[in-house]
């Protein structure tokens, strides 16, 4: 068993050198709140808490004591309860909240790094505060002051949990199929009565928090049958009296929890609303805006699910590395000494390759994630041009962070199992849990196909400047920058080989992008068939771009006399990535531009 150690070196480097922490801390929003030293202390303390408190309970939720359901009540292990309590008491739960309701008002980038630690230590546990904060943000942005005052302080500090209720058995990726009903309360008190069944409700019921505040999408009578007929309601498990104390139980119950492949430490609930008289709920914002409200949080939620992919990939890498350093098996090819003085499997070239692959890909994913997280802060800049550009980057990168980090995490955790050999297939080693846990990340909060469709469509081929008629201008401009940087790096005496591979890869992405813009309108099915490979290409090239930028900065520091092994490592991992991943870009571009029709080439009856 390994113990999680937050990769503080890489986090700090990316925050400072790639994501623009200095500029972010200088923004008026943050200038008085926090400085660089304090950010450092926060990272150190969070790292300690993640390693010592959360990491040890990950296995408990998965294999020793998963949440148990009995007659509507879900009980979690004492360890989960204890850590949750300490997590809240120590202010980590409230960290991302608005200072008005007890939060710390830190930059998103700092929250992002700290959240990576929670998710590396345990995705299942970290989902609980993540969902609560999602609900908090929805209420914060869209609900009335009365609702905010009533619910937010206790939700921000974690005393009450929050949940998001979108999915129904017949309404998964397609929310238009939602059937849950809301009718005005007969007493005419302004509230509504809600009836219906919601499924896949993460942490929909549990005993870590004293109350749960459910946000529920439902239809009002005679509403539009499409997305515009759906409204958002706040539906508490226990009613909250005017003095803040808890009142009677609402008419809602967790009717079952799911048996899942992974994230078994979290309770995934089936929620039944209104079996008796209708669950009482209050409208958030305006009727008919429910889905729009959910979508305002979509970038945030999706980037955070992408972060789960990054985090679990990191954890799987650390776990595999610890094993590869201690497991001795067989002499090392081409190393006569290893026959008499055994060396661990880390010295086998293919185990090296696996670990190098895990490490370099994880760092590439983290670089994109942190860059995007930083852009979310820069989007709050007072300079409208700067803010607009940053927001455009956030929009473009969101499907990549979500789709590509999570898809990659499935590969990376699988490589982690492979490093362990046969024991990796046995649950006791722990490698399998990361493989199982990450599998959901490519599905929930929009599947990879939905991300890819968003990336190739709304974010690229359908992005039109109304004044100039330019299409896909954000993507085109960014990839042009990538190509220009690659040209510069290709001339570098020490890193030229990396630059050359990035040049080719950037060219492939630009070609594929032009194809996508051209094809999307006339042949939408062909474009759609190539969308997931296109997402993969974008992920590979942009990850390579930020790694190469990192390597350039690292080389400059080394040339200036730095001796940090981390910097040398950054160059080595970037070189590996350039030789193993950037070289694939050309082939993937052909897959996208030439492969679409073959996807659709087999007539349906012949399947």
């Amino acid at each position, binding site marked *: 068993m390994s*113990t999680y*150690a937050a990769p*503080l070196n890489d986090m700090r480097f990316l925050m400072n050198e790639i994501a623009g922490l200095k500029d972010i801390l200088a923004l008026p929003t943050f200038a008085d*709140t*926090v*400085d660089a*030293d*304090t950010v*450092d*202390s*926060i990272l*150190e*303390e969070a790292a*300690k*808490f993640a390693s010592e*408190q959360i990491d040890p309970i990950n296995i408990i939720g998965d294999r020793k004591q998963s949440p148990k359901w009995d007659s509507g009540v879900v009980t979690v292990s004492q360890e989960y309860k204890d850590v949750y309590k*300490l997590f809240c*008491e*120590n*202010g*980590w739960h*409230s*960290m991302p909240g608005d200072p008005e309701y007890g939060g*710390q008002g830190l930059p998103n980038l700092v929250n992002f790094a700290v959240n990576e630690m929670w998710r590396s230590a345990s995705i299942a546990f970290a989902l609980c505060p993540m969902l609560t904060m999602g609900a908090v943000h929805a209420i914060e942005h869209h609900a009335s002051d009365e609702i905010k005052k009533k619910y937010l302080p206790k939700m921000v500090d974690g005393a009450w949990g929050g949940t998001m209720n979108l999915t129904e058995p017949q309404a998964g990726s397609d929310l238009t199929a939602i059937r849950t009903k809301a009718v005005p309360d007969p007493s005419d008190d302004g509230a509504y009565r809600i009836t219906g069944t919601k499924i896949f409700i993460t942490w929909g019921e549990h005993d870590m928090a004293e109350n749960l505040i459910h946000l529920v999408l439902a239809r009002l009578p005679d509403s539009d049958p499409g997305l515009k007929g759906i409204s958002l309601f706040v539906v508490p498990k226990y009613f909250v009296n005017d003095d803040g104390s808890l009142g009677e139980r609402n008419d809602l119950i967790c009717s079952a929890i799911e048996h899942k492949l992974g994230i078994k430490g979290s309770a995934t609930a089936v929620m039944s609303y209104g079996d008796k008289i209708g669950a009482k709920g209050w409208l958030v914002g305006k009727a008919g805006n429910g889905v729009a409200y959910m979508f305002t949080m979509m970038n945030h939620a999706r980037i955070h699910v992408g972060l789960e992919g990054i985090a679990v990939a990191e954890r799987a890498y650390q776990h595999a590395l610890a094993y590869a350093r201690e497991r001795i098996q067989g002499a090392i090819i081409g190393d006569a000494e290893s026959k008499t003085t055994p060396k661990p499997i880390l010295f086998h070239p293919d185990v090296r390759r696996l670990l190098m692959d895990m490490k370099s890909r994880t760092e590439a994913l983290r670089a994109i994630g942190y860059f995007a997280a930083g852009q979310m802060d820069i989007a709050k800049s007072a300079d409208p041009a700067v803010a607009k550009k940053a927001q455009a980057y956030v929009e473009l990168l969101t499907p990549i962070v979500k789709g590509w980090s999570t898809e990659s995490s499935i590969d990376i955790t699988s490589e982690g199992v492979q490093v362990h050999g046969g024991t990796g297939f046995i649950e006791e080693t722990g490698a399998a849990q990361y493989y199982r846990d990450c599998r959901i990340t490519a599905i929930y909060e929009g599947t990879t196909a939905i991300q890819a469709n968003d990336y190739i469509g709304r974010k690229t081929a359908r992005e039109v400047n109304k004044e100039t008629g330019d299409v896909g201008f954000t993507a085109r401009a960014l990839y042009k920058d990538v190509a220009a940087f690659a040209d510069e790096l290709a001339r570098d005496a020490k890193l030229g080989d990396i630059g050359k591979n990035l040049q080719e890869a950037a060219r492939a992405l630009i070609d594929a992008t032009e194809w996508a813009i051209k094809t999307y309108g006339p042949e939408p099915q062909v474009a759609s068939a190539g969308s997931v490979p296109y997402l993969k290409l974008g992920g590979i090239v942009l990850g390579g771009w930020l790694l190469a930028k990192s390597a350039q900065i690292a080389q400059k520091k080394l040339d200036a006399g730095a*001796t*940090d*092994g*981390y910097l040398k490592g950054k160059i080595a991992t970037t070189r590996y990535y350039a030789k193993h991943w950037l070289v694939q870009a050309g082939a993937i571009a052909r897959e996208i531009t030439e492969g679409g029709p073959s996807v659709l080439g087999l007539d349906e009856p012949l399947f």
Partner: protein
Amino acid sequence: MKVLVPVKRVVDSNTKVRAKADETGVDLANVKMSMNPFDEIAVEEAVRLKEKGVATEVVVVSCGASSSQETLRTALAVGADRAILVDCGDADLQPLAVAKLLKAVSDKENPQIIIAGKQAIDDDANQVGQMLAALQGWPQVTFASRVDVADGKVKVTREIDGGLETLEASLPAVITADLRLNEPRYAKLPDVMKAKKRPLDTTTPAELGVNVTPRLKTLKVSEPPKRQGGGKVADVADLVNKLKNEAKVI
């Protein structure tokens, strides 16, 4: 009542250290550093004394390079009121020099109790607390596993070979903290954020009038010898023979 707690910045206890190639010391380049774990316990005890209403102020002090400020901030984040850095630059600080520096700080601060970690996990010297008490002419109670302060006296339980020993000392006194004295808390996020705003004063050995020139010379620092591979013995007689004549242990 004021409590002074000396804290030292040391290699993190989870780090695997290596000797420098030239055997002049331990390689500290780019190694994770943290507060000495026994000092964390000392800080925790001082903060608890304050929470119990026994102490009124907790002052932490660190002698070392300017990077020791981070260690002081860690102490401020768990409840120390203010901090003093004795900035010694890259000087090679030895226990007696540290004890003298602390005495000089103590003379200015006039604490009633000094709680130190029993030893630092980097050099394991276990000397500063004792030397400091001697320089001050104060009572010392080392290896404390329980501390009770009342009526100008301190009652301290210490873990000794045969069990527990309880001693009483008059104040002011120096106490050194052992592992089981308490379990240090995690810093709370709001306190981490506030720590930066708490006062941190800097002084130097020159200002304190202390000469920190080393008096001990390190001849070399080397890795422990590599373990040799084992061998098989033919029978019990062979084993006894080898233990007697090769290992010379019986």
